[in-house]
């Protein structure tokens, strides 16, 4: 077990054991370790990063440096539904800004923020690879294409209904 005495909520570090056993041997696996950790915790809690630094044998600053360099890594918890809103070129040309603005306005959150009820997190991304269906958003891995501001909001309303909110 890690002995780090960092502040903030305590994470269950034992969940990391298997990942560390397989990858902690080399610092070249750091990104893979962080990806797996994020899959486990939904984000990268501070104590988890300290623990990884300790086991890999690098400084917490090294871990933090990598975690903040790549856009995939999140340092705060996310909502139940992660909305990835494409801001790529094809989506831009086809009106993604208005779609994102409508989502933002409807949920009252900006890029990187989470709704108070913990249901949605909005994240702007560069391209989802479905450019010919632009504008595109992806919610928990499912892509929605050819959106308009109204149809995007309708998708969110559908989810809210399903969740009874």
């Amino acid at each position, binding site marked *: 077990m890690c002995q780090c005495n960092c502040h903030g909520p305590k994470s269950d570090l034992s969940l990391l054991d298997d990942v560390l056993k397989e990858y902690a041997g*080399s*610092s*070249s*696996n*750091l*990104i*893979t370790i*962080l*990806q797996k950790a994020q899959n486990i915790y939904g984000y990268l809690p501070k104590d988890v990063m300290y623990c990884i630094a300790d086991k890999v044998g690098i400084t917490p600053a090294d871990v933090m*440096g*990598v975690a903040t*360099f*790549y*856009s*995939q*890594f999140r340092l705060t918890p996310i909502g139940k539904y992660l909305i990835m809103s*494409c*801001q*790529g*070129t*094809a*989506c*831009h*040309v*086809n009106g993604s800004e208005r779609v994102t603005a409508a989502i933002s306005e409807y949920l009252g959150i900006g890029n990187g923020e989470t709704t108070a009820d913990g249901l949605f997190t909005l994240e702007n*991304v*560069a*391209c*989802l*690879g*479905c*450019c*010919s*269906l*632009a504008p*595109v958003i992806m919610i928990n*891995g499912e*892509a*929605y*294409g050819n959106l308009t501001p109204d149809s995007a909001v309708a998708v969110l309303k559908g989810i809210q209904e399903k969740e009874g909110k």
Partner: protein
Amino acid sequence: MRIVIGEGSCGIAAGASKVHKAIEAVMTANEPFSLGSTGCIGMCFLEPIVDLYDGKTLLRRLVKVTADDAVSIVEAARSGDLSKVDSITISAEDEEFLNRQTRIALRHCGLIDPVSLDDYREADGYQALEKALKTMTPEQVIEEIKISGLAGRGGAGFPTWFKWNAARQSVSDTKYLICNADEGDPGAFMDRAVIESDPHSLIEGMLIGAYAIGACEMIVYVRAEYPLAIANLEIAIAQAKKANLLGENILGTGFSCDMRIKAGAGAFVCGEETALIESLEGKRGMPRLKPPVPAQKGYMDEPSNINNVETFANVSWIINNGGEAFAAMGTENSKGTKVFALTGKIRKGGLVEIPMGKTLRDVIYGIGGGIRDNKEFKAVQMGGPSGGCIPKELLDTFIDYKALAATGAIMGSGGMVVMDESTCMVGMAKFFLDFTALESCGKCVHCRIGTARMQEILTRIVKGEGKDGDIELLEELCEAVKDGALCGLGQTAPNPVLTTIRYFRNEYEAHIKEKKCPAKECVDLLTYSIDAEACRGCTLCAKKCPAHAISGAVKQAHVINSEACIRCGQCVNSCRFGAIIVE
């Protein structure tokens, strides 16, 4: 009969999986046909697509299929009476989209089951590997690639044989062959389609490259946003290992080589080869100073060779058909074919592979069917954040590395985003600068600060706060950033600005001098008013306006208070009489 559903990422996004489930649901235990899936057919504008085959012969291609069509599809396949699906059969005009292409890198895409090694083998798969390993020396492989004229498809267009040869010449027991599948250009998806739809061709192409340079391990760096590509490639690697196509003593030839996947973590600069190597080593993806080039000192300080997915996808075809057959296509300095991802305001968006030497017009009009909604073509963006916008006057430019570079754009990796009259070119330049300023790794001052300053200037121009001299200031900054940047990201970041200034200077001037956006896209520069003649006084717009900026009595002409108007555009959408004027 076989029913085959196109289930690449974009097919799935369009609803292909729902169609698959719906067909399954109406099938009974003993049907006289089978149901399968394939990858990207590349006709994204017609997705979801369902193909009906008799053996290898395509009987019908059904397009824009929905779950509601499941019953008629199954009935047609059962009875053989294809008239039941006439209403969803592809039109003769749309068939031309594929007929006008020459597919080499995409040769199996949409034809085989991506996760079936048997399918790949039947389509001549792994014959090139066998030929190379058993009948050719590594030098002969490199020579064949040299004859083919194959150049890197990742953007720079560097001759592939030259890089392979340099890596071959480097002396070391441990060498690496790396595939760049980071596909960072936002708006491009050629590489995703190849990996998802034909993962074995990437493995085969890489194995031939590994043999040529003498590598002991192959690594594929795939962007994390491509989960299906990663999944299919993982399956293909496992199949290849089992079939002794990967690992120790491949096909009994004594050649050994392993393969693994590394998922990227979202950083555009990691597409640059030295940054990619840093990232593979678990570090922040910041480019290294060259030399030493990767062929001398790359991953883990060992000789490494990096190529793009599409580059590798051409290799086994070249070995099978000979370098000369490949070089027979194209122009003096650009050989073979190139894949483009055609998107934007195009009628028929999708994947297009054509021989080099065709014109942009051939792609955009001949294959893509021109501009959507009867609008005017304005420009095509090629090469993403490193590229530029090519205007209408240059539509007859050849697809050729040199000819495209002469326009100020680049061939790039294959993103082709088409724009119409409603796209603001200053806004486009700002869009790319926002992107590169965000993605700059921060190592060099010119790129880090220079892109931020350019972004600031462009932001003030689109807000109507541009000043005299801003264009000249931008041009000066562009030159400074180009000269002072360490890697390609910074060196090419000015291209979108320079090309838009070069071809659309009038739009910059309209923003700066007249405070107008000719494309009517820059919100801050628009004014909304009501044409008193056309207005019927229906009050709809007044009810819709979130800012309560519209007033007027019933059946009287309405007016907009421009002080209160927040330029949201809702009134335009609500007026059925076209009375709202936007300027």
